[in-house]
């Protein structure tokens, strides 16, 4: 494939093809939904149509990626490198899984509004733009498209108060974060006169940052810190994760994080490579705070969803350890860890979504007691997911943690890896009780867990995810190579650093 001239309409269209396909498809689904929005069949139709759209977007993405799409000259607006493609593929994966897991869930919770799927597709478009942005304006655009769709999704369960609360909370705090980000972008523009990452990097050069640029960087970090739910910007996450419909929680915990982390890495490495002296201590602080708070607070949670919410905060902290490294290896580790985390989290939320029943309160850890005897497959899959989140050898999560630690150790940093493993140790304290409840305790009632049924789609999604966790846990060569290659494509700005 010849390089795309991003200045020409044709080149820009080609470069944005996956996002355009997905946008167009979501409008199409919206049109279909305008006529068909009454019954379960309508909802399923919209769901499968959306899934098809994700597949199409995935196909165009694969075309670009495998075709080795590259820009002619400098990149404008949208990056055209393997790091964007890797992140976008992960986002599409998360979207597809979320759609499949939602099909039966929406029926069961009587949420028969097929606009749900349109919002999911639009959120995915926003995520892909955010992850692929090479310009501050596109970054903000992607962030807003993503966020606004997800605000609505979080409040989608109209019958539950907690869902409405989640949406409002998420919206208010999210708007606040967006404002910070926008202010940061404005300050950076004021300091450099540029919005393009690479140009900002060139303009700033290797000199120390001016106060204005430094403040801009700080505000951008705060804005993205909210989206990756780094402590102390995490306050919204537990309530929102708990209140949102379960598949949406899975989507937020994976897709939003993938997009925000990819953007964070790209901004730091391409726009502020020389300001590492400034952002590395900040990231280190955020990482330690996030790991400690996420893990310690998760210990005290009774609700499974809240526990997973805090654990996902902790995982954001682990990922920040590799962001800290600020190297190609670190960027590869971030992407790789996001893959392991996404696959594992999707599977666990998928199981959780199937375990809930109509209009029930949130699931407590104790509610899973004896699951293994009634639904051995589900319990086993859940146990594998939790072990992978714990970072146990033989699972995908272990390889991911190994990579994160390597990225930090390669830079001679030992404190962050030690904090990371101590955090993992604490996390054993809340993952194990779930496994224990499922396998070692007897169920409370005779007919407990009988209502736990998996639709074929959900079953397939969870099975594939668990298979990935196990196979790549033992044989991660493929994804490792892809992650590292993607990281290497991250602009010339990183070439100076190992």
């Amino acid at each position, binding site marked *: 494939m010849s390089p795309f001239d991003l200045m020409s309409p044709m080149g820009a269209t080609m470069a944005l093809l996956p996002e355009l396909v997905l946008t167009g498809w979501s409008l199409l689904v919206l049109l279909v939904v305008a006529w068909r929005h009454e019954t379960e069949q309508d909802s399923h139709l919209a769901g499968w149509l959306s899934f098809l759209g994700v597949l199409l977007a995935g196909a165009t993405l694969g075309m670009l990626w495998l075709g080795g799409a590259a820009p002619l000259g400098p990149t404008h607006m949208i990056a055209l490198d393997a790091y964007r493609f890797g992140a976008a593929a992960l986002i599409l994966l998360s979207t597809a899984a979320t759609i499949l897991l939602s099909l039966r869930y929406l029926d069961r919770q009587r949420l028969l509004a097929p606009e749900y799927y349109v919002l999911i597709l639009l959120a995915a478009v926003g995520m892909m733009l955010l992850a692929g942005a090479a310009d501050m304006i596109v970054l903000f655009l992607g962030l807003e498209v993503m966020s606004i769709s997800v605000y609505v999704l979080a409040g989608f369960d109209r019958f539950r108060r907690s869902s409405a609360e989640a949406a409002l909370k998420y919206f208010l705090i999210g708007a606040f974060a967006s404002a910070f980000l926008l202010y940061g972008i404005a300050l950076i523009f004021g300091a450099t006169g540029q919005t393009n990452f690479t140009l900002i990097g060139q303009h700033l050069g290797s000199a120390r940052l001016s106060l204005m640029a430094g403040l801009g960087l700080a505000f951008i970090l705060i804005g993205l810190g909210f989206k990756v739910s780094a402590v102390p910007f995490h306050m919204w996450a537990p309530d929102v994760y708990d209140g949102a419909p379960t598949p949406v929680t899975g989507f937020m915990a994976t897709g939003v994080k993938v997009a925000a982390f990819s953007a964070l890495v790209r901004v730091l490495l391409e726009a502020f490579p020389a300001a590492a002296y400034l952002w590395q201590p900040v990231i280190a602080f955020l990482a330690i705070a996030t790991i400690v708070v996420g893990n310690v607070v998760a210990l005290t949670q009774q609700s499974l969803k809240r526990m997973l919410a805090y654990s996902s905060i902790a995982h954001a902290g682990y990922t920040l350890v590799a962001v800290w490294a600020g190297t190609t290896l670190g960027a590869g580790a971030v992407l790789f860890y996001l893959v392991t985390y996404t696959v594992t989290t999707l599977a666990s939320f998928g199981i959780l979504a199937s375990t809930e029943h109509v209009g029930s309160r949130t699931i407590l850890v104790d509610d899973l007691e004896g699951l293994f005897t009634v639904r051995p497959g589900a319990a086993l899959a859940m146990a594998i997911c939790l*072990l992978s989140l714990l970072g*146990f*050898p*033989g699972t995908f999560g*272990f390889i991911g943690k*190994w990579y994160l*630690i*390597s990225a930090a*150790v*390669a830079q001679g940093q*030992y404190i962050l*890896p*030690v904090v990371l*493993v*101590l955090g*993992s*140790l604490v996390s*054993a*304290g809340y993952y*194990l*009780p779930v496994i*224990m409840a499922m*396998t*070692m*305790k007897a169920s409370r009632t005779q007919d407990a867990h009988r209502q736990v049924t998996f639709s074929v789609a959900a079953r397939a999604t969870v099975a594939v995810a668990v298979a990935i966790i196990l196979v790549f846990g033992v044989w*991660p*060569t493929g994804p*490792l*190579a892809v992650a*590292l290659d993607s990281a290497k494509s991250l602009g010339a700005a990183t070439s100076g650093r190992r």
Partner: protein
Amino acid sequence: MTAFLASIGYDRWILHVLLATPLIGMVVVIVSPPAWARVLALIVALFELVVSLGLWWAFDPSVPGMQFVTKVDWLPMWGVSYYVGLDGLTIFMVLLSTCMMPLLVWGSWHQIDFKRRGFYALLLALKTGMLGVFLAMDLFLFYCFWELLLIPMYFLIGIWGSSNKLYASEKFFIYTFSGSLLMLVAIISMVWIVGGATGTYSFSYDHLLAHRDLLGSAAPWLFTAFALAFAVKVPVFPFHTWLPDAHGEAPTAGSVDLAVILLKMGTYGFLRFAIPFFPAFALSRTVSALVVALAVTGIIYGALVSMVQPDLKRVVAYSSVSHLGFVMLGIWAGTVQSVQGSIMVMIAHGISTGALFFLVGMLYERRHTRLIADFGGLAKVAPLLATAFTITAFSSIGLPGLNGFIGEFLVLLGSFGRFPGATIVATSVVVFAAAYLLWAVQRVFFNPLVGPENEKVRDLNFREIAVIAPLIVAMVWMGLYPQPILRRTEAAAVRYVETVRPHVQPTAAAPVVTAEAHP
């Protein structure tokens, strides 16, 4: 025999077969009907046993290094390989593990009466993990096996354990997991430090050992991380508190596996990794003094606490703390005799403590209690059981002529020159050792027969005799004729001593005992 083994290429496939068979067996057990589980597990165990026996002949005692070596790239971009091998330090751990396997299945035959498939599948998975720990020569692989063991053990205790199983299983997991996590950071750091200096990023044991001098100022930290992981597993006093709970609550098979293999992984880790990698720091005066003090404390503390335990299983569990203190003492003394003695104690402790746990399990099956106070005078109604228990107890306390004596004697002999004070204290403890087990034996078997339940206790049946008899034969054989075992461990012990010798601090009491001085 050697020629036959060579003709079938034994040395090329044996280790892979040993590692893979239990895993395949696990899958087969899971997909088969529950009623077949124990039979299938027994078949796999017997197969492992028969195949592994060839090691006895195929192993060349004169070679100090690794034998049966295979190295295949696994994750080449990280320098990780599937690298396995066997030497004099590990051959008996492997053989002990494979020999115990059929006994474990056979011993759990009736005791496990629910979720049989899961039980035997986990038992098989545990076996692969154990063998892997001893065979792995790549630190990534080693770490994977090391951690993988936790899961089957966690479930074995948590599902099939006795009353307080949930507490025990979680404690076991958290303790051992916490120890090993820092080792993970240490392993990665070592590879990056060595890789940064040499340009070769490799997790291979040889590579790291050859460049251990490059670790420089990081060595104390790295050693501490490794030592914590191993000390929890041994367990060295004061990290031992998980052991009585785990042992006490685990089903018999779990207790036996813990005693026979899992505890040895800690001492093996010191012998193979922690000391050879960082000899200058590990054997420095301060660290030696600390470790020896902890080892002797463990020897005495284990014996004393064991004496007052009301629960027979906990008596045996605390005696392990005491025995493994001897192993630690021998390792740190760093003479050929003491190291060989340590290996002998590891083997002997495996056999005799394993047998004790089997016997306690059999008592529990009969009376559904393990409290010593509930028993009394069982020798009258169950003479075979009483005899077996008494012989095993004798072996455990180190009666000359049985296997416990050889190892402890060698450790004390080899350590005396280096740590005379500690050795004298440890020797005096053998008296306590006699007290704690013999007192328990007396109260269970030889006091007046009281209570209707005790009168109805039946003697060993054929299956139980088949479990215990091989162990007793091994105790006597090792006690009377340990030469074949010593001969096979000597080269490895000498190699270990030579690896660390330049760093052994000469003490005022005696010069360093060198390999040459050994008769």
